[in-house]
């Protein structure tokens, strides 16, 4: 594939360059090369990102049940319907509860692991690998283990076996929504998968803290442990912490895999925003209008978070420095 592209494009490029050797030729050579390098990507970006987004904004204003080329314009009815007449608002609540659980716990656990691993002098790479390894596991595989082995509601489930040793009766973690044991299942799963990943971010940040700061603090009489952590480590990690929290929020917002596989779309509880979109657009109703309206609302909501994230993580910072 690459050979044909080289041949196809190299020729006109060199022809142009030899035509007008001086400045002008060089510049057009650069322009041509710019499009040669970025062209394939940009074409794909337009077709597979911009067209779908535009299309779905268009669909969201039409009665688009069972069709993607609707003709009946209905204004904001799809938005009204999905915001009042569906489970979509409920799913935003589910997300909020989920985020309230998963963001602080992942933040604390990954920071805790990073602090521990950072102090190790032996087998440090080993322990780092162990905590990082779950990142390679898919949410589906983890959901399977969580649902069918660890939190299986029957006797042979690992947790029920362990609790059984202490005389606790079997708990059906996933059978019904009250008490909401399912949050334990969902949250612990995501915690297991993503803690190691954020630990790596914290480890990198910890290693960037200048050792002099700790030495200076020691001279000033700060005690190792809580005091240095509170007044040096934590403030020095602020940028990373903020980034981690925002990444966690965006990830929680898009939660789908483990909810779909553990809770399922037929349950009336714990349905995430993406699950509601999935049901609206690809379920029995095939209502692409309502599904698109929901997608637009979600995108707008997440834009706010991403923009904030961009600010903090410095997306596009290259401009000024360039």
């Amino acid at each position: 594939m690459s050979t044909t592209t080289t041949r196809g494009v190299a020729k006109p490029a060199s022809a142009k360059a030899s035509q007008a050797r001086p400045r002008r030729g060089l510049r057009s050579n650069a322009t041509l090369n710019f499009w040669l390098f970025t062209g394939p990507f940009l074409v794909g970006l337009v077709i597979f990102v911009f067209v779908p987004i535009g299309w779905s904004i268009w669909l969201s204003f039409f009665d688009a049940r069972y069709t993607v080329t609707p003709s009946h314009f209905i204004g904001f009815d799809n938005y009204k319907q999905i915001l009042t007449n569906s489970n979509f608002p409920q799913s935003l609540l589910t997300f909020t509860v989920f985020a309230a659980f998963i963001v602080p716990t992942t933040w604390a656990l990954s920071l805790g692991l990073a602090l521990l691993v950072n102090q190790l002098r032996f087998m440090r790479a080993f322990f780092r690998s162990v905590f990082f390894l779950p990142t390679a596991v898919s949410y589906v595989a983890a959901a399977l283990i969580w649902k069918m082995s660890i939190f299986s509601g029957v006797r042979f489930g690992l947790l029920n076996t362990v609790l059984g040793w202490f005389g606790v009766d079997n708990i059906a973690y996933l059978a019904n929504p009250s008490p909401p044991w399912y949050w334990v299942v969902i949250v612990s799963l995501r915690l297991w998968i993503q803690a190691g990943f954020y630990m790596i971010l914290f480890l990198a940040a910890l290693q960037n803290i200048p050792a002099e700061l700790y030495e200076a603090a020691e001279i000033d009489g700060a005690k190792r442990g809580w005091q240095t952590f509170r007044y040096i480590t934590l403030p020095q990690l602020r940028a990373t912490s903020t980034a981690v929290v925002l990444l966690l929020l965006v990830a929680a917002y898009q939660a789908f895999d483990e909810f779909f596989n553990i809770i399922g779309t037929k349950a009336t509880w714990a349905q995430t925003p993406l699950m509601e979109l999935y049901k609206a657009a690809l379920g029995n109703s095939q209502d692409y209008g309502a599904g698109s309206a929901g997608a637009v609302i979600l995108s707008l909501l997440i834009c706010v978070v991403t923009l904030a994230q961009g600010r903090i993580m410095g997306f596009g910072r290259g401009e000024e420095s360039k």
Partner: protein
Amino acid sequence: MSTTAPQLGKKRKKRGSVLGNTGLYLAVGIAALLFLIPFYLILRNALSTDPEITGENWKLLPSFQWGNISELFDDQTVQFGRALWNSTVVAVLMTVGTLLVCSLAGYGLARIPYKHSNKVFYVVLATLMVPTAVTFVPSFVLVSSLGWVDTYRGLIIPGLFSGFTCFLFRQYFLGFPKELEEAARVDGLGYWGAYWRIVVPNSLNFFAAIATITFISGWNAFLWPLVIGQDPSSWTVQIALSSFMTNQTVNFHLIFMATAVSILPLVFVFLFLQRWLVQGIAQTGIKG
């Protein structure tokens, strides 16, 4: 452990206390054990018989039923080999395609002087505002209109044009030493030649990091393959696993063996490429 600790700790006396070290390693050790439990469960159940898995008495070690492996691949109702193949094709082609398309674009944006280069870059940046998962409804609308449902094309191509990966490559190439390229220029190489002969061979670490991340996310992807793969013949491993969970006909030991087999390639990729992966994440702060 405690014998070498004081040697290393000479510079910082206070750190080397044996008691503190024991506590530290105890804490890390317990945490590590907890993190490894799910892996143990997969392997134990994958190599057990069904009665062993569901038995009342918990057995620590399975009876090592290696025959479960061949049983899994021989079972025609499950079609797991097919799913494994699909996942391999999708993850490999996605990795190759993403690296090719996004690295070229990233290089063009970073290094080729063009007056509207910044405007083009903003167009790319704009796509970062909308996460791909949220756009699966419109993407499905497009892909189904193209007739790409149940095809490799439909599974792979829409995922290649990652604004974020392009952005990462651009940032990386901005920091690539100019002198190397200028030397290539003096030797008469154009942008294209310099890119392939000088820039790429000197950036293999970064390419490996992005490749690992892309491969893992391609292999583990669930939502998009679920939407696109309507016929079982186009299912990836993740969709097959998911169907086992709701489908009551598949036996426990086969489900867990399938899970083990689906995770194994990634664990290997992960262990061998971890260095690049860690480097990549530390540099970029992302997962695919």
